[in-house]
């Protein structure tokens, strides 16, 4: 087994986990964590696949893209968390649907 495909496959699994979490988990904080997993999954695919280069150091372009992606993700996360806190202050809820709140 070649790590060049091992890590991208792990990234694929992580991305799928993120999709599932974003759609299925009810708590808004779980949705934010899922969104971060989506990002990490994509980054693993990007850098993992860049490792197929035969040169002694891997392709730097995907690494640069991932660095940009990490910073963008933290910006999105901060906004999402600010919205969640404001929403919680306004309604006392931590889910979209009050029905789900009672099941948590």
């Amino acid at each position, binding site marked *: 087994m070649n790590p060049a495909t091992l890590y991208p496959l792990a990234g694929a*699994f992580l991305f799928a986990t993120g999709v599932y979490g974003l759609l299925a988990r009810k708590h808004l904080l779980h949705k934010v964590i899922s969104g971060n997993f989506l990002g990490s999954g994509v980054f693993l695919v990007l850098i993992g696949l860049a490792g197929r280069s035969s*040169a002694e150091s891997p392709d730097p*372009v995907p690494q640069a893209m991932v660095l940009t992606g990490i910073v963008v993700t933290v*910006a999105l996360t901060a906004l999402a968390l600010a919205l969640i806190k404001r929403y919680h202050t306004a309604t006392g809820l931590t889910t979209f649907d009050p029905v789900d709140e009672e099941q948590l």
Partner: protein
Amino acid sequence: MSDRRRLAALLPAIVAAAVLAVIVRAVWSLPPEAEGLSVAVSRVAAESGIDNKITVVLLDLRGYDTLLEVAVLMLATVAVLSLREDRDALYRRISERAAPVLAALTRLLVPLALVVAVHLVWVGAVRPGGAFQAGAVLGAAGILLALSGYARPQWVGRGAMRSALAVGLLTFLGIAMLSIVAGGELLEYPEQSRKTLILVIEVLLTLSIGASLVSLFLSSASEGPKEAGR
């Protein structure tokens, strides 16, 4: 009703499995070796005298991405600020006093982080490091300071705070426009001063990314119990 709920619970799993299958198939189909752009970037890096190829990509080849990314950071900070409940709270300090352990940890970690950040910018041209990583370390140190009560953001006047948040983006835009005035295209560096200019941008970018991360955290952090705040 229960059928609908069961379907609603199943749907995310089906979507996730389908996505997984699609990606795995695509990854599997790729040839085992590919160069990407690494050879072309190496050539440019050798010419410019900056050995860290990631720095070359981030600040020179794809500097425009980086410019927009600084805009993302500032935009997110503005967005978070617009969500604050009361305006004065923007400038209130985070915590009254730090827990002793956190304070001790801060005294230890922050100077260390500063040294690491300076080191990262310095070696960024040749070894791993550079503005992003140094800025991130700097930002983390700033957040630690704020958490432990050392940073008192309320001393910052409103105008000064606004300027501090915008200065990163404005400086980057200014440098970008200078290259137009100098007769090149946006973000095109003159051949003889490329390395110096990139280092200058790195230092500015480190400060601006660090400042943006700290302000992102400060503007987002909870105001804490109302009665303790004043």
